[in-house]
């Protein structure tokens, strides 16, 4: 069934978009990620203008994150103080991201920078995840468990000033790296249309040593805050948030996620991380091919004003 999108200004097949949302939702429930890094490229490849894709997925991330955050909230697995610091700095980051987004759109390099960032970040994170999970699988085969968190290690991060106590995470650390992470994720999130969970969670675990019991819930709160602000800013600066597209993606996403979570309970953690790593690498590779492969059409049109550019 065809449905006309008022902001993207083109009709789409409702069931295909709904199915995309559900499929990405399934994977995000299965692998414990927001799925923005899959959904934004899927929308772009299916012909939705990049600006509309990025801005609309930002809204979808709010929905999927708040759905997941609710269950962590019930289990008290959120460090609210850490989440607040991360969110406040995330909001600063997403504001910077929106300004950059708008600037790049004007000079016609938005698509290129989005592709370049996807290649860089997805390539790096994907390779790290894959090697880590393969190592964990090999260790498990030998019968040894690998501790994710090595206690007692103090890197240079712990020597920074402005220390703050985060009781729930049992941490006494400087706020500077916390804020830096928040700003960075907010920036990337609003620029690329991703929640950034797959970067935020490892950063919190490996850089700040946040206990794994609260890390996912806390990062979800950060994503809700930063992406909510990014959605409003996208809507204000470029009017590129498509509410109809967002609803289709949200409903498909939250339903798909429920099935993903159920299946995910039967799969081992290191196998899930290997799958996620492969998926992240595949998306990155797809963008790399687009960047280096000679395009069939060298020219492109962009309206000098309006969301379709």
């Amino acid at each position: 069934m065809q449905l006309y999108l008022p902001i993207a200004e083109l009709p789409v097949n409702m069931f295909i978009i709904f199915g995309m949302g559900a499929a990405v939702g399934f994977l995000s429930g299965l692998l414990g990620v927001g799925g923005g890094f899959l959904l934004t490229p899927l929308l772009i490849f299916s012909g939705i203008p990049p600006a509309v894709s990025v801005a609309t997925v930002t809204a979808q991330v709010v929905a999927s994150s708040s759905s997941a955050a609710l269950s962590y909230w019930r289990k008290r697995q959120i460090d609210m103080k850490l989440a607040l610091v991360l969110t406040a700095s995330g909001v600063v980051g997403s504001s910077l991201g929106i300004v950059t987004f708008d600037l790049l759109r004007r000079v016609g390099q938005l698509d290129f920078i989005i592709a370049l960032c996807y290649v860089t970040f997805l390539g790096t994170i994907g390779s790290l995840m894959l090697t880590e999970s393969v190592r964990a699988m090999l260790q498990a085969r030998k019968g040894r468990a690998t501790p994710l968190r090595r206690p007692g290690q103090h890197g240079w991060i712990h020597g920074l000033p402005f220390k703050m106590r985060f009781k729930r995470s049992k941490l006494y650390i400087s706020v500077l790296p916390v804020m830096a992470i928040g700003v960075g994720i907010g920036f990337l999130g609003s620029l690329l249309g991703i929640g950034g969970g797959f970067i935020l969670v490892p950063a919190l675990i490996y850089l700040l040593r946040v206990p794994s019991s609260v890390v996912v819930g806390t990062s979800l709160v950060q994503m809700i805050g930063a992406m909510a602000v990014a959605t409003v800013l996208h809507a204000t600066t470029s009017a590129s948030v498509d509410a109809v597209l967002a609803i289709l993606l949200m409903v498909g996403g939250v339903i798909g996620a429920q099935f993903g979570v159920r299946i995910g309970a039967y799969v081992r953690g290191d196998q899930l991380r290997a799958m996620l790593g492969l998926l992240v690498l595949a998306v990155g590779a797809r963008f790399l091919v687009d960047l280096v492969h000679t395009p069939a059409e060298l020219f492109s049109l962009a309206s000098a004003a309006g969301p379709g550019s």
Partner: protein
Amino acid sequence: MSPQGLLLAFAVLLAALPARAETLIVALSSQQVRISSNFTGSSITVFGAVERDAATVSRAAFYDVVVVVKGPAETVVTRKKDRFLGVWLNRSSRTFVNVPSFYAMHASRPLEQVTTPQLLKRYQLGTDQIVFPVVADDGAVSAEAGDAYREAFVRLKSNARLYQSHPYAVSFPGAEIFQTTIELPANVPTGRYVTTVYLFRDGALLASKEEPIIVVKSGFEQTSYALAQSQGFLYGLAVVLLAIFTGWLAGVIFRRD
């Protein structure tokens, strides 16, 4: 004015009449296209009749009719990718100002058989004849036919079916009655369109007539688009609240613990 003067004026008028004796009557199947949620494109049929007054004798030659539909003017950046350090990125661009966002040309015969190149140029008939003004700092006043950016623009617009040329699309059910159907694809820009019908015979333009078409979003499409454009902040806030509500609802419905 003296009676002689009046008589003279009437005589001059009478003498001038046969030269423009043909008048065009044009009717459109609809003057407004509404884009609603199930919009997948539309079509508009242009009907017309050639009316001659009693003084004009019927002539043996055929009429030729050219129908042009132009969408609202837009400013478009055409960008060209080049390889730079191994990757492809937009390296150069040309900005066209006030070019039609939609252009459909339907004719009864190929344009070069209808009339002379001079007239085609004067009335901007056909995609080769549209004037493409270039923004001042891009070096030229307008892009001539053969310009790479201009050709790319027309090609991309044609691929999106926003520029169309159909040389045999105007049909004559009767000797002096014609009709053609303009297809508007699903991605048509909104705004005021102008349909112009040109009547030719033996290469000479006998008459022309303009009719407007309005393409508007309607109902929910219009409401949400207008809200997004004028009240971006409220629109964004509404989408965020909707997202949080959807997430919360899903969390409640699918609660497992």
